[in-house]
């Protein structure tokens, strides 16, 4: 990074710089970062270190292949309202308040995230509950005039995750929309504390099962960085194969969901045939349809058989490509996708979106290319980007990514795949891990004590970032029936959001 001297950053680990700030410096520093065009607010969380709450603010400097972490102790009045300068920080401001009882200055109204409204003071949290005597700062919802609120959820359509969608409408047009997700909060990060990384991985995978490989790879990398141990390249290549298979099946599932949302039963059935075959290929290659239990801190448990991958993946993806080609020539499908659920490039940057949603809105970011890890340092990656930001753009980004994944699996397999799990030394320390899930950048930050137990594990799946653009997308001149289409094109999970 150019301004490295001025920012006074210290290198915490390869690819990550860290700077401890005093409480008074925070606002200026965030303003400085807001002026750096390539700085993307990636995460923002609290961590109790030596009995004191430390706030950690993470930026991705994607063109410089670097992450920057700013830290400061939250004492007294907490911290300045950062979301005034960096809107991408708002959801996390609400989260830090709910979990640690520290709110941003300025009496800002906050939204409710995972603590249910009827929860009492003793509801389990990562830190201390907000003070009892303070009125709740949550923003009230007033709907008036021509509009009314249509409550939808938390029990939704068949085999959909629980999520409450408050639809504000005048009849058909979506005027506003908000989400309530506390119905699915399982306290994943709290459950990880005091565990050894090996035990913790089981829970990390289940934070968001559809990104199990990506989230656990990010977590494993963080743990391995603390232990200063990297698995051999062949083992990392096996992980990368699992990651790309995860991307393929997720994108196939998203395409099937888009067909379902647009009422195309034939397209849906054809995409689901491909999806089922991809899941069976996962099972044949790694022993689990959703690739659970494949990774472990220190390595990977299974090396897939190259012949199985070679003979299995190509034909299925060919089938899927044929399905997509017929979809592109189906007007009733394309009509529903174009100009539907628009996220403008500006919004995508402002909200710090990641993954296909960001790439469809003109953001050329991909963790595999911008912060290379494992075998991706040696692989050429073509990152598909669209600028229209609609459902159509998101789907075509996914379609291109499937082809990239296919090519990468072939290259990885040719380079040789290995298995093996090394014993990691139990040493104290902090580190960040990252990975590119099918939904975008997945982050994990761990703090281990001298026994090698987790003091704090921050798990940030891509879903946790991208849902914040859902209301903007749904509002953009859309009607009720567009919402399932937009949701399918985002292809996020509530599990990853509520954790």
């Amino acid at each position: 990074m150019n301004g490295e001297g001025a920012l006074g950053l210290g290198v915490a680990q390869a690819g990550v710089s860290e700077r401890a700030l005093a409480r008074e410096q925070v606002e200026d520093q965030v303003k400085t970062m807001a002026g750096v065009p390539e700085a993307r607010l990636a995460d923002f969380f609290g961590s109790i270190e030596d009995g004191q709450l430390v706030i950690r603010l993470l930026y991705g400097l994607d063109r410089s292949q670097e992450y920057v972490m700013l830290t400061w102790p939250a004492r007294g009045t907490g911290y300045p309202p950062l979301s005034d300068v960096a809107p991408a920080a708002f959801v996390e401001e609400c989260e830090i308040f709910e979990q640690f009882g520290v709110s941003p200055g300025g009496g800002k109204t906050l939204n409710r995230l995972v603590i249910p409204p009827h929860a009492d003071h003793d509801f389990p949290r990562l830190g201390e509950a907000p003070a009892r005597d303070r009125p709740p700062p949550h923003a009230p919802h007033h709907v008036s005039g021509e509009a009314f609120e249509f409550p939808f959820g938390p029990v939704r359509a068949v085999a959909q995750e629980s999520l409450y969608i408050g639809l504000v409408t005048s009849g058909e047009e979506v005027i506003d929309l908000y989400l309530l997700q506390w119905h699915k909060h399982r306290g994943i990060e709290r459950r990880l504390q005091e565990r050894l990384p090996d035990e913790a991985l089981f829970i990390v995978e289940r934070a968001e099962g559809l990104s199990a490989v990506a989230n656990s790879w990010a977590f494993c990398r963080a743990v391995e960085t603390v232990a200063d141990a990297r698995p051999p390249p062949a083992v990392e290549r096996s992980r990368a194969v699992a990651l790309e298979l995860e991307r393929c099946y997720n994108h196939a599932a998203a395409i099937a969901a888009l067909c379902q949302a647009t009422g195309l039963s034939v397209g849906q059935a054809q995409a689901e045939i491909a999806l089922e075959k991809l899941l069976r290929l996962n099972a044949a290659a790694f022993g689990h349809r959703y690739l659970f239990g494949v990774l472990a801190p220190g390595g990977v448990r299974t090396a897939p058989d190259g012949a199985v991958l070679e003979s299995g993946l190509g034909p299925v993806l060919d089938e899927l490509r044929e399905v997509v080609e017929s979809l592109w020539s189906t007007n009733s499908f394309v009509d529903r996708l174009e100009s539907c659920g628009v996220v403008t490039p500006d919004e995508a940057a402002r909200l710090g979106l990641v993954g296909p949603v960001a790439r469809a809105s003109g953001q050329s970011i991909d963790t595999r290319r911008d912060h290379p890890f494992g075998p991706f340092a040696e692989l050429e990656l073509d990152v598909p980007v669209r600028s229209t930001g609609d459902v159509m753009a998101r789907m075509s980004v996914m379609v291109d990514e499937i082809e990239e994944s296919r090519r990468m699996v072939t290259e990885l397999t040719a380079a040789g795949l290995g298995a093996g799990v090394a014993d990691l030394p139990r040493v104290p320390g902090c580190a960040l891990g990252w990975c590119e899930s099918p939904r975008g950048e997945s982050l994990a930050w761990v703090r281990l004590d001298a026994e090698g137990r987790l003091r704090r594990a921050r798990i940030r799946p891509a879903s946790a970032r991208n849902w914040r653009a859902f209301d903007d997308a749904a509002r953009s001149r859309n009607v009720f029936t567009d919402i399932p289409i937009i949701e399918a094109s985002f292809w996020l999970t509530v599990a990853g959001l509520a954790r």
Partner: protein
Amino acid sequence: MSESPTLPTSPPANLRLLDDERDERAAARRLREAAVAIFGRSLHIRTIDTGSCAVCESEIRLLAAPHYDLHRLGLFFTPSPRHADVLLVTGPAVRAFDPALMKTYHAMPEPKLVVAVGACPLGGVYGEDELVHGRLENVLPVDVFIPGCPPSPLALLHGLLVAVGRLAEKAGELSFIEGTNDSRGTTTSGAMPEDRR
């Protein structure tokens, strides 16, 4: 459709557990026969997520996909619990979700079944604590458990097969004469029980 549509009082002998899950066609045939005999090709399933990781939902969605095609067996998903015979529950029963779970359960007409799907509602992922009940049994009477993390669509079909047998048992216990109580004490006035109006 050759079987007579009488209600058996005990589960049919053909509802034994399958030794080999790969015997897909046999499972499908048994399920179809049982469903046809008991529910006239019309068994309706409502799914509910009490905090899953989204993978069980993915497998449940695939039940309707061509490889498994639930509909050919006379089984259907229904968005309304009031039309549902079976409640397919995923997740560890998050406490904050209780009101929605209970409303859904109570909206279902008798006879009804609760099927716990996956390791979460069996207590295999999260223990009982302040956030989750851990085991679905702690809040609802569970009739069938389908283990697996996630259970594959074939395991789900297998579990539904068992469920159809249980439903036959429950249906046999019900009295369909107005104003009488069945052996389990639930009032069922056949045509329109209290909670269905």
